[in-house]
């Protein structure tokens, strides 16, 4: 088994789970604001209020009664996504990409056909809290299906690639592109075997790719090379993410963003406890950057200023960072 010494990790400024929880999440994330990100419905409504682009909300299913009547409401919708408002880790998300006209079956993103009864059961599970933390009753959100920008089609196996950005006090400090694989069942979830590709904050170019905590260079399913990827509209995407800090007031925040073919970057969801593998994909520890932001005397209230500051200081090639290596 491959491993690395704690001393080495410390020298690299790697943020560990305990340190993240004690020194960042508990200090900078006010528990009162958690519902804003844990409840995807609230996030969505808030984002619309702040003018942050999100996939359009179609329906909210709140009760089992509404579940029974869902067929009538979705009759005319070809493509949609069902997700639990309180889900985590991509659990309970059902993506419908079309309709089989003959059998009236629904076609899932992985090609599987399900009946309306299956759909209702899924929604019923969602509403009764199967996917929510603590099993509380939940709401099922039905929203527009995002049509992924085809730019990453070659490096993604089914599913929609998304971009995870870590924001500290509203400054984007690290980014990663997440690509679904066959192992991850079309989900862009690193725990399930999706690939994380580190992105240079300055440019949106790829740095390194990681699957199951191991460095990879090509996509295991498509064999496409993972270096030299470039996220389009990078700055606009950072602006979108940086705005999320203003609307949630969470100091340590993860923003998941998708690239829609027509609408460009859309905020998918927010996370008050973003994961740590992003550091491996960037081949950099988070602590020096977090310490850098913390030491700033005056932090900007304008998202654009924060983005340009981060782009100049946290670029992968930037030497400034090296000089301030966290000890």
């Amino acid at each position, binding site marked *: 088994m491959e491993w690395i010494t704690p001393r080495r990790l410390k020298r690299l400024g790697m943020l560990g789970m305990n340190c993240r929880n*004690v020194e960042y999440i508990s200090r900078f994330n006010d528990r009162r604001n958690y519902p804003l990100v844990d409840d995807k419905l609230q996030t969505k409504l808030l984002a619309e209020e702040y003018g942050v682009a999100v996939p359009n909300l179609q329906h909210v299913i709140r009760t089992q009664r509404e579940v029974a009547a869902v067929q009538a409401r979705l009759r005319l919708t070809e493509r949609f996504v069902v997700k639990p408002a309180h889900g985590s880790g991509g659990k309970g998300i059902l993506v419908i990409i079309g309709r089989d006209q003959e059998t009236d079956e629904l076609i899932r993103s992985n090609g599987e056909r399900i009946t309306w009864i299956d759909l209702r059961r899924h929604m019923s599970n969602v509403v009764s809290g199967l996917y929510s933390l603590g099993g509380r009753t939940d709401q099922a959100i039905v929203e527009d299906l995002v049509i992924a920008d085809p730019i990453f089609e070659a490096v993604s196996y089914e599913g929609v690639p998304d971009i995870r950005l870590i924001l500290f006090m509203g400054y984007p400090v690290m980014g990663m592109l997440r690509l679904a694989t066959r192992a991850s069942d079309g989900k862009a979830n690193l*725990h399930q075997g999706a690939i994380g590709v580190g992105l240079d904050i300055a440019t949106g170019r790829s740095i390194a790719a990681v699957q199951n905590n191991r460095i990879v260079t090509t996509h295991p399913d498509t064999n496409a090379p993972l270096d030299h990827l470039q996220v389009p509209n990078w700055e606009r995407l950072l602006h979108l993410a940086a705005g999320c800090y203003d609307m949630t007031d969470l100091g340590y925040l993860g923003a998941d963003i998708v690239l829609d073919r027509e609408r460009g970057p859309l905020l998918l969801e927010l996370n008050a406890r973003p994961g740590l593998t992003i550091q491996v994909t960037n081949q950099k520890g988070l602590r020096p950057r977090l310490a850098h932001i913390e030491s700033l005397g005056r932090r900007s209230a304008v998202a654009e200023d924060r983005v340009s500051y981060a782009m100049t200081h946290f670029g992968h090639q930037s030497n400034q960072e090296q000089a301030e290596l966290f000890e």
Partner: protein
Amino acid sequence: MTQRWPYLFIMAALFAGGIATAVFRHDTYRIPYLPGTAQSVWQIEAKVEFEASGDPVQVALTLPPVQAGFTFLEGTAASPGYGSHREQGRAQQLIRWSKRDARGIQTLFYKFEAVEAPDFAPPPADETAPTAESLVWDEPYDTAVASLLASAVPRSADGYTLARELLVLMNTTPVDQNVALLLSEWDPPRLLPRLLRQAGVAARTVTALDLQDRRRRQELRELVQVWDGSGWRLLDPQTDGAERPDNLLLWQTSEPSVLEVIGGTNSRVLFSMINQTRSALSLVSAQSANPLLSLYSLPIEEQSLFKLIMLLPVGALVVVLMRILVGIRTSGTFMPVLIALAFLQTQLVTGLISFLLVVATGLVLRSYLSALNLLLVARIATLVIVVIGIISVVSIVSYRLGLIGGLTITFFPMIILAWTIERMSILWEEEGPKEVLIQGGGSLFVATIAFLLMQQPVVQHLAFNFPELHLCLLALILLVGRYTGYRLTELVRFSGMRGAD
């Protein structure tokens, strides 16, 4: 960290508080640190017999004084028809029986227990050195005493050595004329104190009980105590004055007699006794002088419940260490502790096998349930019933096969099992069997570690008898709660950083 020092101070205070309270309670209430410490206990029964003449009767029996080497447990004065109470006599406690009208042979009992406590010493009495008032001897004893003392005093250094010298003279054969004369008037235990007092040394006759296992109808024995300047020293005039022998219980040290009977004749007191070895702990709970806030004051049934409850923090500590320092993923934060508690009842191997059996069967049935399109609550409820069914079948089958161990399966908390099956099943659907193995294996691993720790007799003993030690656990958990270093599993998880500079 801004509040580092106050925080560390509180940790240290909690820790020290826990240890200090434990030490204090050990010293004060004699609660042993280790399980199974045995102590020797004497059950002593004093039997008072006398012939009542038909008048109102009062009987007073002197009780043994507080003394080094023994602690006493509350006694009972069981005697039908008699009123009895304890009271403080002039020098010692005594028990007093009374009856308005008694006739014929009367028998009264007083039973109590004396616990051998070798390191117990009574608080030093503010006993001033007793003075030895001189006595008046009649002729011819006067001359005999003078001559005895004249030969013994020059060979002695102090009161105690004088007593030893006198005893040598009294026990020499052939018997000295003077000694023979005096012994014809006084028994040795009576004579020796008189001689010593004549020489200006404080001395007294005391009575004591020889503790010998399973002796019956034993009588008290007279011994001599000599003041050596700081305390009383015991001498046995029958031998030539050895030190205090073992298993000797001082009964009476001051003048009035051991037994006083008014309204009766031919009274005597006889003793029988047995020796038992009992765990030190059962004695602690028997000692009435226990503190207000003590688990021992609860009924036995609740106590055995608390024995389990008090183990929970130990399991919680294991979970905290495993999750924060090692980084093992478990299904449900404290489910491993509950499994470990169940293991305590079933033992490890039986527990592991039955747990796996139930969960595996449950998972198979659950996969069928998922096709039934049930609501969550109904599904869990179904699983609870399924779990009970599985447990019943396993119990019956294992009983038929003669495996009694299978019956202990019922100790698993059913609801927890049902939830475990549900979560595992969802985990299987959502993240695949690998994650089920990781989390299930993690849970069982942590549960096993917690069980191995909770099963230790020392741990069980300390957790129940020194609940204050949980303050130390608390301090430890709070301390670990602020640990910001890397988890053991992160060293593997971040191994992809080896190429980074």
